[in-house]
């Protein structure tokens, strides 16, 4: 029974343990088993996606990239992707729609970049606060604005992902709730609409995970 619309996101707690967070590990079941040197189809697909992402992230970081620089961001992408896509399936808990998880991903990343940058390349970071070509009059305000934008970065990263997931799920639930009270003929309209919405949601899932990973890459490249 739904108390309010947002109760679908409530983490269910059985045995006084929040077992719903185990949904995060569903992605592990999809990772390919690599017993053999020669890969199978899904393993090859994952390999293609990974290598493509690696190429993209390497170009984003540019000349500052070192060996293995892109690894954490690729795994971040795959982790968030699996969580988003699995959340679309019925009865699976969408972990990435909770700020608890997204902030737990974004905040340590951002904090580590900031600490590293400010302690090791202080001048470089201070220089970033004033973009190229600002008129002299505006410089103080630019510093303020850039500081604020820097500080809210973890917030934006986390909230962007969580809000997109919440919005999508909310729409699906609203539509689905009309299902039991519908005639069979109207059901086809409902299903068509839901299919369209699900297509959109899958695209959003992929894009949001990509955006998260790309922004993290960019923040890391700024600092190096």
């Amino acid at each position, binding site marked *: 029974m739904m108390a309010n619309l947002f109760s*679908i996101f409530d983490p269910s707690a059985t045995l006084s343990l929040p077992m719903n967070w185990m949904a995060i590990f569903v992605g592990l*079941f999809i990772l390919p088993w690599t*017993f*053999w*040197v*020669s*890969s*199978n*189809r899904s393993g*090859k*697909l994952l390999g*293609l996606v990974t290598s493509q992402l690696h190429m993209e992230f390497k170009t984003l970081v540019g000349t500052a990239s070192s060996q293995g620089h892109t690894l954490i961001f690729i795994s971040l992408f795959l982790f968030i992707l699996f969580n988003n896509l699995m959340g*679309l*399936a*019925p*009865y699976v808990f969408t972990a990435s729609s909770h700020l608890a998880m997204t902030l737990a991903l974004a905040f340590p990343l951002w904090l580590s970049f900031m600490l590293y940058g400010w302690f090791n390349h202080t001048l470089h970071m201070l220089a970033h606060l004033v973009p190229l070509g600002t008129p002299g009059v505006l410089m103080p305000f630019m510093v303020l604005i850039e500081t604020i934008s820097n500080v809210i970065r973890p917030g934006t990263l986390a909230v962007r992902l969580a809000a997109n997931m919440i919005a999508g799920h909310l729409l*699906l*639930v609203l*539509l*689905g*709730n009309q*299902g*039991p009270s519908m005639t069979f003929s109207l059901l086809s309209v*409902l*299903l068509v609409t*839901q*299919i369209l919405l*699900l*297509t959109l949601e899958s695209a959003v899932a992929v894009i949001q995970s990509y955006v998260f990973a790309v922004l993290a890459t960019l923040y890391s490249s700024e600092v190096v």
Partner: protein
Amino acid sequence: MLSRVALKPVRSAIQPLRMTQTSATSNAAAAATSESSERDLVNFPRPVRQEFPAKVRMGFIPDDWFQFFYSKTGVTGPYTFGLGLATYLCSKEIYIMEHEFYTGLSIAIMGIYAVKKLGPATAKFLDAEVAKSDAALNSGRDVSIDQAKSKIVSEKAEQERALAQKMLFDAKRENVALQLEAAYREQLIKVFTETKKRLDYQVEVQNVQRNLEQRHVVDWVLRNVRAAVTPEQEKATLSQCIANIKSLAQQNTARI
């Protein structure tokens, strides 16, 4: 995943056995079941890589489960069980068809459509990619094999060339034999002509000698005869001749 553990004995009876090892190594492995001292290959056989995914019914239910139930319930057993279970859950409202159900229905429709439409193309593409990476892995071995094969071919060509050399030797030998034969014949003729020349000379010498002797004898006889002819004989012969001529002349005038 757990079904594989549960149904292990059934699975081993219908193992798909398309191997990616070469037939040589697999034959060697099969032949070495009793010979391998390091590992017990009877109880712990080497795992074989599946070429294709396991068979499934209705897209996601492993075929092994149906085979497992076949002996007890026949062909329709699992389907009846599934339908019955679903009906029971829905009618008793143990499973309530609320918003998640319709979402699941939409996802099922999307999934079936995607698999039917895009499945074969994706599988073909991915198979091609896997084949590419397999070829890259095997390339060292394959390149070496090709090189060895081409070496064999060129070696055979060299052997043929050497055989041709042998023919050349025979030809040369024949040539030399012909030349020897020709030289021999030439010398034979030379010997013949020389011998004939000498014999002819001897014959000529004999002929000349005989001619000389003959002429000498004739001259001697004539000389002696002329010497022996006395004047009386000469007169008598002459008168005889005249008498003969006269008689002849008389005969001739008588005839005319």
